């Protein structure tokens, strides 16, 4: 073998191994992140975390009960608005859309999907916080719903479009009207994908912080929905940057809880999608 050929072979082996290293590094990062968080969070978590309200600066102890409840409230508001709107918009795009209008809606949905969440927060601030003269769970919920709507719409559309046309024709040929066909055949056929899209969307907004900073704000209490409301991500942000060790520990604990929830939802959703083949091709 010539020297040059030998060099080419060595280079090939080296470069390909290098790509393997890149892949391993990428995967390892996930486990490093998870490991580091669990290690630090686990040491800091106790019952107080779930049962106590957060204490103001200077006071020791306390937990994150208000943040947990607040996150729950805000996410509930966001999904109550975002999921139905996104779902029905997706149904429109998949089943009724005319050419131009549907294209426009799709384009805008993709546009919204790409908008940094902090800009969405600015919009929610102008639309809810200013008229209400203050932060509220409503504002935070609306901000998050604006992120949820385009994701849900596009994923619903994607899964409904993948239902074969012949299934629709089978139902129509039996005398079913279009809306009945959609409701009783197409949506059930696509429900796994639609549900997965929804779960992933909710998991995504559960971790969003930026839009909440000036819409739902923060609080050490559990107030009504019209008042500033604490949330896990916002708490993590403020506590991590504080000068108190005690608060750092709480940030780790909260971070671990948040990450585990989000990863769990993601894994569950992907498993649902891969397990089920709703429609035979």
């Amino acid at each position, binding site marked *: 073998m010539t020297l040059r050929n030998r060099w080419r072979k060595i280079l090939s082996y080296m470069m390909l191994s290098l790509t393997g290293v890149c892949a391993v590094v990428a995967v390892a990062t996930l486990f490093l992140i998870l490991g580091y968080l669990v290690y630090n969070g686990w040491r800091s978590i106790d019952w107080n975390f779930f049962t106590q309200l957060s204490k103001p600066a200077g006071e020791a102890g306390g937990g994150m009960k208000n943040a947990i409840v607040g996150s729950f409230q805000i996410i509930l508001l966001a999904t109550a608005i975002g999921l139905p709107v996104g779902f029905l918009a997706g149904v429109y795009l998949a089943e009724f859309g005319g050419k131009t209008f549907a294209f426009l809606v799709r384009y805008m949905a993709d546009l919204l999907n790409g908008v940094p969440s902090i800009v969405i927060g600015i919009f929610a601030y102008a639309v809810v916080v200013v008229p209400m003269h203050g932060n509220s769970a409503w504002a935070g919920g609306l901000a998050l719903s604006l992120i949820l709507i385009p994701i849900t719409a596009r994923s619903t559309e994607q899964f409904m479009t993948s239902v074969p*046309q012949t*299934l629709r024709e*089978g139902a129509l*040929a*039996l*005398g079913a009207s279009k809306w009945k066909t959609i409701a*009783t055949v197409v949506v059930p056929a696509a429900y796994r994908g639609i549900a997965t899209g929804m779960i992933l969307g909710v998991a995504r907004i559960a971790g969003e912080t930026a839009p909440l900073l000036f819409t739902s704000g923060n609080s050490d209490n559990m107030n009504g929905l019209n008042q500033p409301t604490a949330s896990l991500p916002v708490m993590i942000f403020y506590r991590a940057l504080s000068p108190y060790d005690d608060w750092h520990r709480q940030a780790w604990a909260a971070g671990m809880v948040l990450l585990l929830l989000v990863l769990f939802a993601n894994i569950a959703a992907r498993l649902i999608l891969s397990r089920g083949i709703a429609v035979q091709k």
Partner: protein
Amino acid sequence: MNDITMGTANLPSASHAAGKPAPHSGKLKAVNLNFYYGAYQALHGITLEVPANRITALIGPSGCGKSTFLRTLNRISETIGNTRVEGQVLLDDEDVLSVDVTTLRRRVGMVFQKSNPFPKSIFDNVAYGLKVNGFRGSLKDAVEHSLKRAALWEEVKDKLHKSAYAISGGQQQRLCIARALAVDPEVLLLDEPCSALDPIATAKIEDLLFTLKDQCTIVIVTHNMQQAARVADRTGFFLLGKLIEYNTTEVIFKNPTKQETEDYITGRFG
């Protein structure tokens, strides 16, 4: 025969039906039918009468328009955008365009080329048409009756609640026939129903058609000439969107009047 009652397991065989005379006027008629996909004309001036309680076959090479024609009969062609119909299709002398389309489709059922059972149980598949049309009687009895008419009952009676995808391809197609029959259509349209099936499954479906024609008018599109020769009373030959010849099956296959028909039958093309 028209009521859904507890039918017996034995259905009248084909030989009984052979002696009945065809009624005077066609059950389903096309009058000078033109069909357009956008600017492209797919059907040119189709005129034919489908006799009641008979099997009518439509044959021709790929792309000749026979499936397109079939799909105008129950207006399922409308589900694709940008289509236009000129001329008339008459069901019992009533223009199908003036009839409510969902009622039309209950009266004129369809079975598709590749079986398309819903991702539901066998029971729910057959019951679907009944539920959607507001059936008030016993679903269980109606489903059983349909499955018996489709000669599938014995094979699935203990797995009615299993998924429709758990049975074989041939059985799925008979399930689709049972599903179509459940709403008691006056006409049954079949679009190359056996093209994806093996010879045994095909034979079962052909036998089925003989037993059904007493209660139903059948129009079947097939690319398999031998199938048309086996099952059909009348046959129409389509070519390039035109109806070249339409007559009793015997005449078409033994004594065609048009050269194109003879060329197709003898295998010179298609």
